[in-house]
């Protein structure tokens, strides 16, 4: 069996000094070699692994025929944001996990091929795009993350007049303010959003639904259905002593300053950020990896990840953990923070941790971390970034009492229709809970769009 092609990467020595993308996409030669590996299975197990059912063998076949534009259309029929998914989908748990070749050897590099097709298509730029003249009912989308963008694109294609409301100054959600440039260039996010605008979707930034306009106002303005994709933007803290010291950030704040506000270009861009020499990041998911690797690129000398379980349990994508290790991020495993210690001026100086050992599996199925008595120690730090997770922002439900939520503030929806407790209001993506991936949010947006179409036809 031919060997799986891998994308070349910027060397770790080089890349820690810039914000350019880490992985170079496939060259045409690499893409052709990889596409040849696909067996074109009749039963398409790979497609079952993709939450939006991208017709994988079909598009790979079109790559083989060097008809990249057709391959792009094939993907886009199911996936509004291929350049993004090709980069950030956890393919190893999804499409590639089901690929037949993976049973004996290495699966087809589906993600890298998808990225290749999307990038080729955008390089072409030959196509003249015409704006749709949409005339259907007005639909409002709240939040412009992947769920909102997908719902907007699908509804616009169906002929609805779609307005996308976004609280921040630019659309994209986590794709814009969370995932860093070196993993997902912002120019790609901008371009994918341009495609969606070309479908006739109107984007209104700087509108906070719940404050600037209420759900009631949207009905009054003639919107016939509403999709809520407000994500999970509320940062969790540890509730440890010293957490409000200067130099302690939530990952949301740190990444928003760096990505959305471009603090890495300070003082040309006016938003400041503190990095310091020694940074500790608490948590071990994608968000923690992104925070750690961003801190490194902003000039930190020593960056560590502090995680209470072992490497096996780290929730981040394997690829990103490997990238972090290559960049010499120090994984301080089986360590749990207990206290943040500051100096007289109110700046963080040390992070106190306790050593942990793994016990029996807990309710999450992972071994329970147990503190080892009297094993406390401290690490010197200039900055601590708390990346232990986020919950849904409670603002919109708080201002819309009829909108029912769980006790964790997730909006409750019907499993099949994605309709909330308010008739005509639908929701999806991180705000309803679930797997918290870009592609799952897009899957929700797609299903909700279908239901909205059905609802509006009734």
């Amino acid at each position, binding site marked *: 069996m031919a060997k799986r092609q891998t994308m070349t990467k910027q060397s770790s020595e080089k890349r820690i000094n810039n914000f350019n993308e880490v992985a170079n996409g496939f060259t045409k030669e690499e893409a052709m070699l990889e596409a040849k590996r696909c067996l074109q299975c009749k039963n398409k197990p790979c497609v079952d692994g993709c939450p939006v059912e991208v017709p994988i063998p079909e598009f790979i076949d079109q790559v083989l025929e060097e008809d990249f534009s057709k391959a792009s259309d094939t993907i886009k029929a199911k996936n509004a944001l291929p350049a993004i998914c090709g980069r950030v989908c956890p393919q190893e748990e999804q499409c590639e996990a089901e690929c037949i070749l993976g049973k004996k050897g290495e699966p087809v590099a589906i993600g890298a091929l998808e990225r290749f097709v999307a990038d080729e298509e955008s390089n072409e730029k030959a196509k003249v795009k015409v704006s749709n003249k949409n005339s259907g009912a007005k639909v409002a989308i709240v939040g412009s993350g992947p769920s909102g963008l997908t719902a907007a694109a699908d509804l616009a294609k169906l002929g609805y007049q779609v307005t996308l409301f976004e*609280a*921040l*100054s630019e659309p994209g959600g986590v794709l814009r303010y969370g995932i860093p440039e070196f993993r997902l260039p912002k120019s790609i996010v901008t371009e994918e959003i341009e495609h969606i605008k070309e479908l006739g979707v109107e984007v209104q*930034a*700087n*509108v*906070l639904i719940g*404050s*600037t*306009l209420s759900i009631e106002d949207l009905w009054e303005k003639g919107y016939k259905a509403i999709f809520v994709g407000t994500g999970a*933007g*509320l*940062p969790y*803290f540890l*509730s440890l002593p010293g*957490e*409000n*010291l*200067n*130099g302690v*950030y*939530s990952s*949301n*704040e740190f990444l*928003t*300053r760096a990505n959305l*506000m*471009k603090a890495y*270009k*300070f*003082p*040309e*861009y*006016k*938003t*400041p950020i*503190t990095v310091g020499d020694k940074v500790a990041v608490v948590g071990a998911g994608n968000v923690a990896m992104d925070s750690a690797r961003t801190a490194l690129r902003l000039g930190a000398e020593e960056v560590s990840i502090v995680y209470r379980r072992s490497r096996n349990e780290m929730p981040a994508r394997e690829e990103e953990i490997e990238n972090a290790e290559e960049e010499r991020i120090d994984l301080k495993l089986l360590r749990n923070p207990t206290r943040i210690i500051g100096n007289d*001026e*109110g700046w963080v100086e040390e992070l106190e941790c306790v050593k942990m050992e793994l016990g029996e599996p807990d309710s999450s199925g992972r071994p329970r971390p147990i503190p080892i008595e009297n094993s406390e120690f401290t690490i010197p730090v200039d900055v601590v970034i708390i990346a232990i997770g986020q919950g849904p*922002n*409670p*603002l919109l439900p708080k201002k819309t009492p009829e909108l029912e939520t769980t006790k964790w503030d997730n909006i409750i929806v019907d499993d099949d229709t994605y309709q909330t407790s308010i008739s005509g209001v639908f929701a999806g993506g991180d705000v309803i809970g679930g797997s918290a991936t870009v592609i799952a949010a897009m899957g929700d947006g797609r299903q909700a769009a279908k239901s909205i179409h059905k609802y509006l036809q009734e």
Partner: protein
Amino acid sequence: MAKILDKRDLAPEIDLFTIDAPLVAQKAQPGHFVIVRASETGERIPLTIVDYNRDEGTIDLVIQAVGCSTIELCNLEQGDEFLDLLGPLGEPIEIKEIGTVVCVAGGLGVAPVYPKAKYLKEAGNKIISIVGAQTEEMLIMKDEMEEVSDEIYFATDDGTLGEKGFVTNILDSLLDERDEVDEVVAVGPAVMMKAACEVTTEYDIDTIVSLNPIMIDGTGMCGGCRVTVDGERLFACVDGPAFDGHAVDFEELMMRQSHYEDEEEEAEHKCNLDREVE
């Protein structure tokens, strides 16, 4: 984009802007603020909605040029636009009939105090105002405050207007003389609010303050504006900015406000350099 319809000089380095913002004006209430960004390279900074006109679709903002971002905003003229304006943000303060309310404003604190005084007055309260500034020249919105106050006292650092000294001295003697005061609203620099709360604690009078930590999004997404109130961690942008002053950890607030002192100096320096080049 939000267009500047009118700009007025209130004092040296303090300007009042009337902004075309129909959606915000429609929803604005006393206590609300907006987040503004001047340009693509600008910072997001919070500013109080000082007044609003729903019919005209306008809001008024008062901006004091203290650093890079406020200088950039104050350099804009009538007809120019703010790139971004988001709001109204925060929880409005409750406007009800309480009885007699003392409104204490220090420096630019007049901006947030004025709408509260105005609507509390409309709701039938007696308003006693104490307004302080460095000098008479720096004291803004004097006429507006006089108009909404039943009684008004002034304090300046140099004695050019009213009493020489702090607003808190006047507050102390006023509370000492009068039993009728039901509530105090105090807004200004954190040190002033802290001092005012120390005075009102002595007289056991409820005191509302409006906190001004460093903010970015203003929507509850970053946690940068976290403050400790009654031992609890709250986000000033969505849970406030008004809080029970007797429960606020002011020391922590002041510490957190100083987070970017070095960077702010660097930014202001660059701001000034850029302007000289122009």
